[in-house]
């Protein structure tokens, strides 16, 4: 493999804050790296941990999960529920040996266009340094005779 490693980043973002924030990044013409693919959901509350699991199966090297800041949830408390879910899921992933450096949880509001760009760049650089997340990807082909 001579090709330079370009990480695959998947972002799960809520419609009202982070997606809108990322829109603002666009309208402000702030540049960031193009590795990220954004999946829009209504609310962080909708982000089932299984979605993250599947993203890793499909070879994502890094995941961003982001939504409204606490107290700013469009649905008042979806993000609070999501936050608890992440707290446990992150713990569990770590316990099972999944690399939690591969998941970045964040709050990016609709006003934080610059923050979104910064977040994506940080995560992309970080994952580029960590290298491909082979462990999980390889699971998908292992164990079949």
């Amino acid at each position, binding site marked *: 493999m001579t090709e330079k490693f370009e990480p695959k980043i998947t972002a799960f973002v809520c419609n009202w804050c982070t997606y809108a924030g990322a829109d603002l990044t666009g309208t402000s013409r702030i540049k960031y790296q193009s590795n990220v693919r954004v999946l829009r959901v209504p609310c962080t509350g909708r982000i089932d941990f299984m979605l993250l699991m599947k993203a890793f199966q*499909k070879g994502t090297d890094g995941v961003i999960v982001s939504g409204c800041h606490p107290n700013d949830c469009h649905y008042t408390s979806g993000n609070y529920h999501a936050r608890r879910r992440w707290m446990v899921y992150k713990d569990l992933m770590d316990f099972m040996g999944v690399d939690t450096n591969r998941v970045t949880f964040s709050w990016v509001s609709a006003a934080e266009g610059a923050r979104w760009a910064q977040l994506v760049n940080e995560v992309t650089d970080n994952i580029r340094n960590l290298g491909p997340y082979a462990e999980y990807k390889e699971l998908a082909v292992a164990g*079949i*005779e």
Partner: protein
Amino acid sequence: MADTFKLTHENLDSLFAALRKDGRRILAPVDGDGRTELNEVEKPSQVAKGYIQTIMSAKDVVFPKVERLLSYTTAPGTVELHDAEPKALPTVLFGVRPCEAKAFGALDAVFNWDYRDKFFNARLEKMAVIGVSCLKADDACFCTSLGGGPADTAGSDILLTPIESGYLAEVLTVKGKAIQALAPNLFTPGNGVDKAAIAAKLEQAFDQPALTAKLPGMFENELWEDQALRCIGCGACAYVCPTCVCFDIQEEADPKQGQRLRCWDSCGFSMFTLHASGHNPRETQSARWRQRIYHKFSTYPERYQMLGCVGCGKCTRACPVDMNLREHLVEAANV
């Protein structure tokens, strides 16, 4: 009739070396973490001592828990199919018990009944069994009730019976002979040891032919519901069973490519026969439990003129709620 030889411990060491040199992997029961399971070994010293049975059966050598049946790539308007070739490694199964050795016959009956299953056959062909007779039996065992026995030769290519200073070796089949031919001088002439005297003693627990004869008339007996009440409907018994052959075919795919996998399944699962309409021919756990018994002791004899159970007792040992098959069969036989 089989040719009987002696195989000393040292010679067994050499036989292992010879087998490995011939490019075969040797799978044998190995102790670890309080369990005895089949694992690849290099020398006899690695083989577990004192075990009665492994928990899992050896069936995954010929019928792995997941196996690729085919794969394909798709693009708009086209599908390209790729046949799958089983990765059948030359394998010697060492130390499996006579009951388990016999079980391959029950698998063969299903896999080659009418349609021949190339995956099973490719693996079976590359496999040879060096069975080892049992000197001990436990409360789960009931091979003798099913026409087998602790030193039964059926299914083994070579059957070893431990004797002082080594083994009595019965070379039983062409495959057995081929193994012997790898190092003929290791097999020294055997004398007339009384196998039966050495092997474990296990009383016949019930009259199987009589049971088989009466099962068709007992279908509606409430015994089944009584017995099944404790069963939690998991797949442990089927998954450890050397003869259980039920499988599921599953698709794993993304928009561009996919593969079709065969994986173990169990008739005890509540979804096993469930239709999309919600209709389920075997709605209750008792119906599913009954199916397990009938399949092995009524359907098999009728269909394949053999039993679908070898009395190894693995299911009993694996069952989290101690559904003792022997005990249940005795109960049925006494109805």
